C-alpha cells in the first residue's frame, strides 16, 4: 500500500467521508420530500457545501461552540448532532432536536456545542463572541466559530463582532461560506471588496481564503487558525469559496442562475467527488470502502425519515411550555 499523503489517517478519512455523505444524502432526501409536500415551512439545503463544514468541524470537540446560519443542517451533522433527531425536528415531531418547536432554521444541541441554526442573518456572530469569551474565562483552550454566508457578511452584527473579537483577543473564528449568492443576489453585487481577507485586515484580523470544495484545503487552513485561537493568538477569518447545489430555499426556481451552471458545478465542483477521487487515487481508501459508507448512509437516512414520520406530533399541552425556566 502506498504511503498516506494526507494529514488524516485512514479512519479519519473515512469519518470525514461519512460525515459529508450523511449531509449530502440528508439534504438530497429533504429536497425530494419537500417537493412532495411532506415537510412544512422553509428549508435551506447545504448540499454542495459539505467540505467546508466538515473540514472545519473535524478539529472541534463538544466543548468548542459554533453558531450556524439558516443553512444549518450540514453544520449540525458535522458537529455531531443526531441526524435522526434532526429529521424528526424538520418534520415537526416530538423527539426532534427541539421537540418540534424550532424546525429547520433553529436546530440546536448545546450538549454538542451547537448553539443553533439561526433564522436571522448574521445573528450568530455576536453570540460566538460570547461563547469565545466564556471559553477565555474557562481557560481550557476551547474556541467558538461563527458561520455566515457571503450575504450576511454585510450585516452590522458580523462586522461589529469582527472588531469586538479583535479588541478582546477572543478565541473566535469567523467563517464566511461564500457560495456566490445572497439568496438570489450575486455576491459580487452585494460586497464591494473582492476578498474577505481584505475585509478582515480592515478589522485587524488575519484572514485566509480557501477552495471550499476542497476538503483538504479547508481542513488544513482551519487547523492552523483554530490552533492559533486555542493558544491565545486571537480571532481569524476563513473564507471558503463554495457552491450551492440547490436554490436559496426549496421551491426556488433559480432563474437567476446561468443556464448550465448547476450541471457544471455538480460535474466539476462536487466536493464529495473530489474527495473520493483524491483518496482512492492515493490508494489510501478503496472505492468499495466508500461505497459501503454510501450504502450505510442511505439506510440511515431512510430510517430517519421513517422514524420521523412515525414520531408523535406535539400536543396542545406543549404550546406554552418552555417559554421560561420559571415564570
Amino acid at each position, binding site marked *: 500500500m502506498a504511503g498516506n499523503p494526507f494529514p488524516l489517517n485512514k479512519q479519519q478519512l473515512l469519518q470525514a467521508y461519512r460525515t459529508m455523505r450523511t449531509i449530502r444524502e440528508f439534504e438530497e432526501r429533504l429536497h425530494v420530500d419537500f417537493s412532495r409536500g411532506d415537510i412544512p415551512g422553509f428549508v435551506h439545503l447545504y448540499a454542495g457545501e459539505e467540505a467546508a463544514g466538515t473540514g472545519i468541524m473535524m478539529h472541534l470537540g463538544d466543548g468548542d461552540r459554533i453558531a450556524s446560519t439558516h443553512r444549518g443542517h450540514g453544520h449540525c451533522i458535522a458537529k455531531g448532532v443526531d441526524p435522526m433527531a434532526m429529521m424528526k425536528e424538520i418534520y415537526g415531531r416530538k423527539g426532534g432536536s427541539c421537540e418540534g418547536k424550532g424546525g429547520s432554521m433553529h436546530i440546536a444541541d448545546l450538549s454538542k456545542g451547537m448553539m443553533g441554526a439561526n433564522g436571522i442573518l448574521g445573528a450568530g456572530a455576536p*453570540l460566538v463572541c460570547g461563547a469565545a469569551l466564556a471559553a477565555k474565562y474557562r481557560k481550557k483552550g476551547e474556541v467558538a466559530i461563527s458561520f455566515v454566508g457571503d450575504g450576511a457578511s454585510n450585516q452590522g452584527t458580523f462586522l461589529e463582532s469582527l472588531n469586538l473579537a479583535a479588541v478582546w483577543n477572543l478565541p473566535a473564528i469567523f467563517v464566511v461560506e461564500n457560495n456566490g449568492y445572497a439568496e438570489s443576489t450575486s455576491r459580487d453585487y452585494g460586497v464591494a471588496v473582492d476578498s474577505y481577507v481584505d475585509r478582515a485586515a480592515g478589522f485587524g484580523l488575519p484572514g485566509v481564503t480557501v477552495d471550499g470544495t476542497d476538503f483538504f484545503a479547508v481542513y488544513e487552513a482551519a487547523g492552523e487558525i483554530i490552533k492559533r485561537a486555542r493558544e491565545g493568538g486571537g480571532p481569524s477569518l476563513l473564507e471558503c469559496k463554495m457552491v450551492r447545489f440547490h436554490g436559496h430555499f426549496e421551491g426556488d426556481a433559480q432563474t437567476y442562475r446561468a443556464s448550465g451552471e448547476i450541471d457544471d458545478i455538480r460535474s466539476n465542483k462536487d466536493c464529495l467527488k473530489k474527495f473520493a477521487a483524491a483518496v482512492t487515487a492515493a490508494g489510501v481508501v478503496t472505492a468499495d470502502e466508500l461505497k459501503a459508507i454510501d450504502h450505510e448512509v442511505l439506510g440511515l437516512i431512510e430510517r430517519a425519515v421513517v422514524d420521523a414520520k412515525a414520531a408523535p406530533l406535539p400536543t396542545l399541552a406543549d404550546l406554552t411550555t418552555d417559554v421560561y*425556566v420559571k415564570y
Partner: protein
Amino acid sequence: MARKISMKQAINEALDQEMARDPTVIMMGEDIVGGAGGNGEMDAWGGVLGVTKGLYAKHGDRLLDTPLSESAYIGAAIGAAACGMRPVAELMFVDFMGVCFDQIFNQAAKFKYMFGGKAETPVVIRAMCGGGFRAAAQHSQMLTPLFTHIPGLKVVCPSTPYDTKGLLVQSIRDNDPVIFLEHKNLYGLEGEVPEGLYTIPFGEAHVVREGKTASIVTYGMMVHRSLEAAAALAKDGIECEVIDLRTLSPLDIDTVLDSVTKTGHLVCVDEANPRCSIACDVSAQVAQRAFGALKGPIEMVTAPHAPVPFSPVLEDAYIPGALQIAAAVKRTLAGGRH
C-alpha cells in the same frame, strides 16, 4: 434602623456582592470601568453616572469595557450566558436597544422555547430609563411595553433602593433573560437597604399604601408621584391604595384584582407612551376579569403619544405628575355608578 443608601449604591452593592459570591457573574458595557486603554486613571468613570464605580478594583477583568457596539456586546453577553456564564450587560440608556434589539428579542428571548427547552440564557441587561433629565427624545424613554410584549423576557423596573437590590440579585440568579430598567431620576433616592444579600421574587407587586376608595397601579418613578397624589387626596378623605408592580413581566395581576375588588376604582399610571402600554395591559385585564367589581370607569394617566421633548417646560408637562393622577382618581370616583 437599617442604614440608608441611594438606589445607585444599591445597584453597585448588589453587583459587587453577587460577583463576590458567584465567579460566573461577569459584567460588560460601555465605560462601565472607564478609561480603558488610556493613559489616565483606570476605573475613571464606573459607568456614565458612576453606578459601577469601584467594582473594577475588586473584580478586575470580570468587568469588561466594550467598544460602542451594542449589537456585538449585548449579543456576546447572551452568547456567554448560553455557555455557562451569568453576564450582566449594561446598555446604558434603554433608548439604545433599537440598535441591538434582534439579539434581545429574537435570540435571548427565544432560545429556551425554540430549542425545545434545552437552553438557558441567564443574562441580565441593565439600562437606564425614564425622563426628567432634560435628555430629550433619545435618552429619556421608558419603552417598558416593548419588552413585556416579548415572551421569554422578564422585565423589572424598581422604585426604591430596597427593591432595587433585592430584585437585581434575583435577576442575576434568575435563569431567564431579564431586562432590568433603572429610572435615572431615582438614582439619588435614598432608602433603607440591608447590608447582606437578599432576593425579592418576581411577580410580586408591593402594596405601598393601603386604601379602600380607589386603586392606583403603577411602577418606577410614577410610584412616588402616585404616593404624592394619594397623600393629597387623603386630605379630602379619599383613601387610595397604591400598588407598585415592581416586575412587569411576570405581572402580579392578582394583587391588582384583589385591590380593585375592594375599592371598585382603578387608575393606571404609566410614564410610558399610552398605546399598548403597561397601563393598557393592566386596564384590559381588570376590565376582563373584574368588570363586575368596577364602580367607575378605568382611568389611565400616561405620557402623551409624542416623543420626550427637550425644553424643561415641555418635559415637565410631558411626565405625568401628582396633580394629573389626583384628577384621574376624582374622575373615576365622579363617573361612578351609585
